[in-house]
C-alpha cells in the first residue's frame, strides 16, 4: 500500500498490476475499494493531486432512493442497490447521512396532475412508501414555503450525505487494504498488449493486465486511447448556491422540483454541514473545464429559489460553485466490458453517481471477472472510521472526553465551522493527506464557512505548510 504524489512511479515488478483503475472520483475509488477485497495487485491512478477533485466534489450531495429513475435501466437498478449499500456503509464508517425525506412540490395544476404518475413510477422502481400531501399538510411540514404550493409527493428515505467523506472513505479503505494510489498522474497514452497493457504517464509507465476507465467527463477521451469510440460526453453544468447555516431552520426536507416539459427546475436541500443548498442549473456546454459560475446562472437560481422559499434570499451566501454532469445523449449509464481488451469503461455516470457508486463497483467487479480476471477468495477490508463533518452528529469541539485526551481538539482554528487544530492535524497526517488547502477543506471544512478564510485563512495555511515542510524534511 502506498500513496504517491511526486517523483517517478515505482518501477519493475512494483509497477505491474492485476488491475489499474483510472480516475479517483467517487466511482473509481469505489471500484478500487471493492477490488481490494481480493488478493489482487490494484492501483488507482488520478490526474489531479487529490481524490474526488472532479465532478465528485461538486454535486448536490443527495443519496437518492432512485424513485424517479427510468424503470428498467441499469441506472435505475444500480441507484436502488447503491442507496442501500451506501446507507449501510455510511452507518459503518461514520459518513454523515441524514434521511430527511423529499417533497416534490407542485406549484401549478400541471405539476399537481403529474404527482400520481410519479408515485406510480416510484412503485415500479420498488419504492412503495410515497404519499400525496394536500396543500395544508404540506404547509404544516414546510411552513416557510412561498405562496402557491398546491400539493406534494412525499418520498421517505431520500437523504443528504457528505460527498467528500464518501470518496475519501472509499479511497482510504482501498489504500489501507493494499491498493496503490498514484496522484498527479494523468494517463496520457495506453499501449494495449498481452498479457500487459502499458499506461504511459508523465511520471513513468505502469503495466496492468486489466484496465478500468472511471474517468468521468473524460471517459470518452480515455476510450479513444484504447481505440474505442462508443459515445461522446457532453458536459451539463450545474451551478449551485450554498446558503448560511442560519437558513437551515427554513427547510426540513429535500424540496425537489416536479419534472415537467419546461425543464427540470431547481431543488432546495439542507446539507449535512447544516447549510442550505439551492440549485443546480442544467446547461449543456462543450467545454469540459467550464466549472465556473455565471451571473445569469446565479440570478436565475435566486429567482427560482425565492419563489420556493422566500426567506432564503435574506440569508447570506456561503459558497457558489458548479459541477459538470457527464451526459452522453442516452438516459442510462454507459458501462461496458470489452473482454478482448480486458477493459471496462464506466462512462456516462451522470447525475446519480454518488448514490450508485458502491453498486457500480459491484457491477464492475462482475464485468472484470467476465473479462477473465481471476478474483480469488474474498477477505475483509481494513477497518475504517471517518472523522465526522456532519452537524447532526457529535463534533470534536463539543467532545469533552476527546479534548481531555488531546487539548488540540479544544483549540478551534476555523471559527465559522468550528474546526479544531486536532482535526486539521489528523487530516494532514491521514492515510491520504490533502494535496492543498481545498483538499483540507473537504476533509475538515476549514475555510469553508461563512467567512471563507477572512479570520482563519492565514492560520490554516500556516498549519498546512508547517506540515508540508515537516513531511519534506523527513523524506
Amino acid at each position: 500500500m502506498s500513496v504517491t504524489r511526486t517523483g517517478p512511479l515505482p518501477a519493475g515488478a512494483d509497477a505491474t498490476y492485476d488491475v489499474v483503475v483510472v480516475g479517483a472520483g467517487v466511482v473509481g475509488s469505489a471500484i478500487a475499494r471493492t477490488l481490494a477485497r481480493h488478493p489482487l495487485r490494484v492501483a488507482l491512478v488520478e490526474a489531479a493531486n487529490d481524490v474526488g477533485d472532479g465532478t465528485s466534489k461538486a454535486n448536490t450531495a443527495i443519496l437518492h432512493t432512485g424513485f424517479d429513475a427510468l424503470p428498467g435501466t441499469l441506472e435505475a437498478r444500480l441507484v436502488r442497490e447503491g442507496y442501500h449499500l451506501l446507507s449501510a456503509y455510511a452507518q459503518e464508517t461514520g459518513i454523515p447521512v441524514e434521511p430527511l425525506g423529499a417533497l416534490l412540490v407542485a406549484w401549478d395544476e400541471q405539476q399537481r396532475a403529474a404527482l400520481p404518475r410519479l408515485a406510480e413510477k416510484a412503485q415500479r422502481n420498488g419504492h412503495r412508501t410515497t404519499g400525496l400531501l394536500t396543500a395544508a399538510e404540506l404547509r404544516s411540514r414546510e411552513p416557510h414555503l412561498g405562496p402557491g404550493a398546491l400539493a406534494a409527493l412525499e418520498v421517505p428515505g431520500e437523504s443528504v450525505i457528505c460527498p467528500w467523506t464518501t470518496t475519501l472513505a472509499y479511497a482510504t479503505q482501498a489504500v489501507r487494504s493494499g491498493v496503490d494510489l498514484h496522484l498527479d498522474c494523468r494517463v496520457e497514452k495506453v499501449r494495449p498488449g498481452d498479457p500487459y497493457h502499458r499506461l504511459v504517464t508523465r511520471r513513468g509507465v505502469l503495466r496492468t493486465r486489466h484496465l478500468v476507465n472511471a474517468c468521468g467527463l473524460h471517459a470518452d477521451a480515455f476510450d479513444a486511447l484504447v481505440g474505442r469510440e462508443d459515445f461522446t460526453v457532453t458536459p451539463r453544468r450545474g451551478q449551485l448556491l450554498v446558503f448560511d447555516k442560519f437558513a437551515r431552520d427554513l427547510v426540513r426536507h429535500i424540496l425537489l422540483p416536479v419534472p415537467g416539459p419546461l425543464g427540470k427546475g431547481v431543488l432546495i436541500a439542507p446539507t449535512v454541514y447544516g447549510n442550505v443548498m439551492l440549485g443546480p442549473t442544467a446547461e449543456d456546454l462543450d467545454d469540459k473545464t467550464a466549472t465556473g459560475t455565471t451571473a445569469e446562472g446565479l440570478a436565475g437560481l435566486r429567482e427560482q429559489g425565492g419563489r420556493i422559499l422566500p426567506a432564503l434570499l435574506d440569508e447570506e451566501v456561503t459558497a457558489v460553485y458548479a459541477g459538470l454532469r457527464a451526459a452522453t445523449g442516452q438516459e442510462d449509464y454507459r458501462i461496458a466490458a470489452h473482454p478482448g481488451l480486458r477493459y471496462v469503461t464506466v462512462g456516462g455516470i451522470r447525475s446519480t453517481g454518488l448514490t450508485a457508486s458502491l453498486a457500480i463497483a459491484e457491477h464492475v467487479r462482475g464485468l472484470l471477472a467476465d473479462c477473465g480476471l481471476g478474483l480469488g477468495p474474498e477477505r475483509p477490508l481494513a477497518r475504517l472510521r471517518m472523522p465526522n463533518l456532519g452537524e447532526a452528529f457529535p463534533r470534536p469541539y463539543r467532545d469533552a472526553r476527546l479534548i481531555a485526551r488531546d487539548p488540540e481538539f479544544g483549540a478551534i482554528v476555523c471559527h465559522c465551522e468550528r474546526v479544531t487544530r486536532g482535526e486539521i492535524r489528523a487530516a494532514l497526517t491521514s492515510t491520504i493527506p490533502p494535496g492543498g488547502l481545498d483538499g483540507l477543506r473537504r476533509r475538515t471544512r476549514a475555510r469553508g464557512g461563512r467567512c471563507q478564510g477572512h479570520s482563519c485563512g492565514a492560520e490554516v495555511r500556516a498549519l498546512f505548510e508547517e506540515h508540508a515542510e515537516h513531511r519534506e524534511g523527513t523524506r
Partner: protein
Amino acid sequence: MNRTVDVLVVGAGPAGLAAAARLAAAGAGRVEVLERELDAGGIPRHCARPGFGADARGRPLDGPGYARRSVRAALRAGATVRTGVSATGWAGPLTLDVTAPTGLERVRARAVVLATGARERPRSARLVPGSRPAGVLTTGELQRLVLRFGARPEHIGRRAVVVGGDPVARAAVRTLRAAGVEVVAVVTEHPARRTAFGAVPVLGGAVVSELLGRGRLTGVAVRSGAGRTTRHTLRCDTVVFTGDWIPDHELARACGLPLAPGTRGPATDSAFRTAAAGVFAVGNLLRGVEPAVVAAAEGRTVAAAVIGLLEGRPWPEGRVPVGVPAGSVGPLRWVTPGLLGPVAAPLLVRPERRLVRPVLTVTQDGAPLRRVRLNGALAPWRSVRLPPWWAHGVDLGGGPVVVGAEE
C-alpha cells in the same frame, strides 16, 4: 465545568476590552473576557500602521500598539482576559457554552456583553461569478497572511486587484505594496477618487464581473460605464475584496436577538441594551466597521448600563425600533441605535452612496417628525452623527421610526 461570573464579555477587540476595563475598574465584580484568537486585541492587531490615535505622550499608535495598550488596560483594571477560548452557543438566557483546549465550560453571568466584531463579505457572498481559483482574499485574510508569513509572493501573489473604495481598500493597497505586490488597479462601484490611492489607477463606477483562471487566479473581468456595458480583463494573480461589512452576529442570532435591518447587527438602545434582558452588544458587531476609538467608546459607554443592571435597575420595556426604509436599497444604508428608549440618544447614520446636501427625514407610523437639509456631502464610507434632538417627539408607545433621505 460550570462557572459563574458577574460580567462575561465575548470578544477582546477594542470594544470588548474597553468595556471590561471600565467595568472592572468600576467594581463590577468578576469580569471575564473571552477571545477565540490566540492573542487578544481584535482587528487592530493586524493593522501594522499608524491611524489608531496617540499614546499618552502624543506619539501616534499603530494597530498592534493600540491592541497591546487596550489589553494592558483591561488587565490592569482587574479584568480576566482568556484567549484561545471560543463561545460557541447559549445554554440558557445568560449562560454560554465555551470550548477551550482546557475543556468545555458553561459560563453563567449576570450580564453578557457581546463584542464579536465584524468581517468582510467574501467573494461568494457578493455573488461574484467565475471560477474558484486560489488568490482570492479579503483584507482581513490579507493582513493576517502578511502578519504570519511576511512578504512572500507565493502567499499573496505578484499582481493584485483591490475591490472597494472605502478606507479599508486603502489599507489593503498599502499592505499589498508594502509586501512588494504590484497593485494593478482599484475597482470601485463609486465614482473614482483618484487621490485616495496615490499612483494606483482607480476604476470608478465599475464592478468585478467574473474571476478567471483555474488553480491560481489569472485575471478578473471588469464591467464599467453606464449600464456597465464595457467589459475588459485585468491580468492579476490576486484579488482582494475589501469592505462590505457584515457583523459577526452568530451568537446574537443564536440568542434570538432581532437584527436591525440595514446593519444586520443586533438592535440595541443608546445604552447598548439588546432586546434580551441582561445581554448587551457593542462595537462593530452593531453595524460593521467604525474606527477603533468609536468601538472603544461604545465599550466604555456600555459599562454604566451594565452596572445599573447589576445593581438591580430593571431592563427597559417599550422601546421603539428605528431603521432605514425597508425593502430596496435607498440612499441610506443603516441607522443606529436600532431601539429608542426614554433617554435621548444621538443617531449614527450611514449613507449608501455619496449624497450632496440631502434632506434627512424622521417619520413614525408614517407621520413626519422632522425634515432637515444637511449642509455638505455625505460619503458612503463614513457615518454622520445626528444629535439627540433628532429623535425628540418619538412616541414610545408608537410604531417603528424610519429615518430616510431625499436628495
